[in-house]
């Protein structure tokens, strides 16, 4: 007992001393300070990223041509029924009424040479494509770009945020792992005086107070659009009586969990009230679990099940079609959030009716471009959406080769 304790004490003492010395020594000025050199702003403003392309041949930076109209917030959205679109106001329009706090002023000294830490949520082919897109813009501005992935672990993401703060970059860009934990994460970065951009998944409204802006897909908007196309197709095939649908949901906690299920439900309550929601479940992102879930639905609901809306167009979609094929059901209209290679191939084969255009590279690129715009002193809106588009068999070829 004594020996290990002595050993530990000696080790800690030996290491704590230089720690204290280094602690003082390493608090030097942020690396981005060099970017204040004369002419940097002019050079940065001259950088043109409009010609950059994603791997699918689409422009890397595409902004939504027309900003969404934001309805007034109801006094108490929670008091409204869940199938009322305004019930979801706080999630769908998070950020639009943010009460910004302690947001740093833009240095207006140009984006070239700035250091940014890019923290995503976890390892996934989508994330790889997203990081690639971000890297392309960072390279265009010669930024020091450090991507970090906590592999879906909140404790690790919190640790990475602390470490990023420790590095004192010029900006942190973050995909919060969970909408509800985002406020504390954003607040911590904000209190450290480091500019923050949140992107991709929508955090809860309180987090928006602490960031410069949020960029990413208009998930609710996309799914409201998708649900109309879906309802039209179901009406064409099955008419308007006895149309039951089910939803395979995204991972609980994040904004897609709500947007990709309650978006269509609340939209259809007005647009196609004859569509009845039979069930909604989150089977994760495994094809076999999704297949089992859909097989259970087919047993339980039989011919009443006329449509399935999936939160993911790869693993979930594969599981759905495996179950449908085993049951010999070709009449079920399936739509999903896309656009992975698997999803686009399924659309091309005529199995998946429609998917949303979710540019992964564009998502990362838009976040970094917005960071560059902020360093360049441009006006930044509280929310910046990616464009909305629904891919069907008619135009799926335009989006090949897939980004992931």
């Amino acid at each position: 007992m004594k020996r290990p304790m002595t050993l530990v004490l000696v080790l800690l003492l030996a290491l704590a001393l230089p720690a204290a010395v280094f602690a003082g020594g390493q608090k030097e000025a942020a690396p981005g300070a060099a970017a204040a050199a004369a002419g940097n702003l002019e050079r940065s403003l001259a950088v043109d990223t409009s010609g950059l392309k994603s791997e699918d041949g689409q422009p890397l930076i595409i902004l939504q041509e027309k900003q969404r109209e934001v309805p007034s917030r109801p006094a108490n959205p929670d008091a409204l029924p869940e199938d009322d679109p305004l019930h979801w106001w706080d999630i769908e329009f998070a950020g639009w009424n943010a009460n910004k706090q302690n947001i740093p002023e833009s240095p207006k000294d140009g984006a070239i040479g700035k250091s940014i830490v890019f923290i995503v949520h976890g390892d996934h082919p989508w994330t790889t494509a997203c990081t690639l897109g971000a890297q392309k813009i960072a390279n265009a501005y010669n930024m020091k770009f450090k991507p970090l992935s906590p592999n879906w672990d909140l404790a690790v993401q919190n640790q990475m945020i602390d470490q990023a703060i420790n590095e004192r970059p010029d900006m942190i860009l973050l995909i919060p792992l969970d909408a509800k934990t985002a406020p504390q994460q954003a607040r911590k970065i904000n209190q450290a005086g480091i500019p923050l951009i949140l992107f991709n998944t929508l955090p809860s409204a309180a987090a928006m107070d602490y960031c410069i802006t949020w960029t990413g897909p208009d998930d609710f908007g996309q799914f409201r659009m998708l649900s109309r196309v879906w309802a039209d197709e179901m009406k064409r095939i099955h008419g308007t009586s006895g149309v039951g649908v089910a939803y395979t949901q995204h991972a609980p906690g994040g904004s897609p969990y709500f947007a990709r299920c309650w978006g269509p439900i609340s939209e259809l309550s007005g647009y196609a009230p004859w569509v009845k929601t039979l069930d909604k479940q989150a089977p994760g992102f495994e094809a076999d679990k999704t297949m089992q879930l859909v097989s259970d639905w087919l047993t339980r609901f039989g011919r009443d099940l006329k449509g399935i809306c999936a939160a993911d167009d790869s693993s979930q979609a594969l599981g759905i079609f495996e179950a449908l094929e085993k049951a010999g059901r070709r009449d079920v209209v399936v739509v999903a959030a896309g656009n992975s290679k698997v999803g686009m191939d399924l659309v091309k084969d005529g199995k998946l009716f429609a998917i949303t255009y979710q540019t992964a590279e564009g998502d990362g690129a838009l976040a970094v471009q917005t960071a560059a715009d902020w360093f360049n002193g441009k006006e930044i809106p509280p929310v910046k959406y990616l464009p909305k588009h629904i891919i069907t068999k008619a135009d799926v070829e335009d989006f090949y080769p897939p980004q992931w």
Partner: protein
Amino acid sequence: MNNDSKKGRGREKTLTFIDRNRIFLLFGVVFLVMALFAPRFMTSFNLTTIMRTTAMNATAAIGFTLILIVGQLDLSIGTIITFAGVVGLGLKQYIGYGGSVPIAILAGCAIGLINGLLVAKAKISSFIVTLGMLTLLQGAIYTITRGNSISLSSPDAFAVSDWLARMIIPLITPRVVITLVLVGGFTVFLRLTRVGRNFYMVGGNRQTAWLSGMDTDLYTIVAFVISGFTAAVGGVLFAMEGAAATLNLGNTSLMYVISAVIIGGTAMSGGKGGVLKSFFAILMLDVLYNGIILFGLGNEVKIFIAGIILAAVVLYEAYTRYKHDKTVGQRAELLKEVDELKERIKTAKHRAAV
């Protein structure tokens, strides 16, 4: 005694020392490498970050070490972490932390008690019982929260959160203090008290322990209650500091804690191990992961290195067990006498030949 046997004994002593203290040495080496080469590693902010990161899993590892010492397994610690976080934060808005935190911790103890009773009294394998509890708790968490994470953004919740995260002195925050107190308390309890040492006996040889008059069932039940308690404390404190509890808060903790406790030298077969060693194993892994991030390396490198360390430790354990099994029952002093006799005969033959 000749020089060779002196050297042999010295070597044996060194090997025993290394074996007994391998986790401290491993920690020292990893720390030193990171201190020398990882950029910005030796800042008080970064070192405090490591300690704060360590706190949740280290707290849960205390109970898990005890579970392994008594020769059982607890797969439910990850979900107890989540459950306690959800209960602690979920009830806060109704009864404040003063009521919600004790309830969350008591809930953890109650879950441990159910696990313990089913294992000790119903004689069901701890693997099956705790796997069932894991699934049951996951269902309960999703039912209670309806798939929503719980977050608090009121000024008082942020005040508690800031207080738990504030640096008292470099490396030490209030949450770290709680972890260190628990680690210290359980280390002393297991090493220096008769009741504490009895846990080793129950895990090392259950039958002998029973024949010695120990209530082995009671020790098993208590170990599960402590495991539930420490997991709940870890979970609720983590949630309080983050002012949020996600539904997968403790999902990765189970594998992390199992790996660390084994790397720390606690035997899965029971009867061997220590809380302090488990703590240093968690700390070592966190230092390693921290350094990997500072080097700008990816998550895949982190998983790969952790896998190598775990594999090396398991191989080493297997080798020492093989060596032990080979020599079990042999009397070392007799073997030494035979060796000396052989040496003398060899020398005599050599002289005769000359």
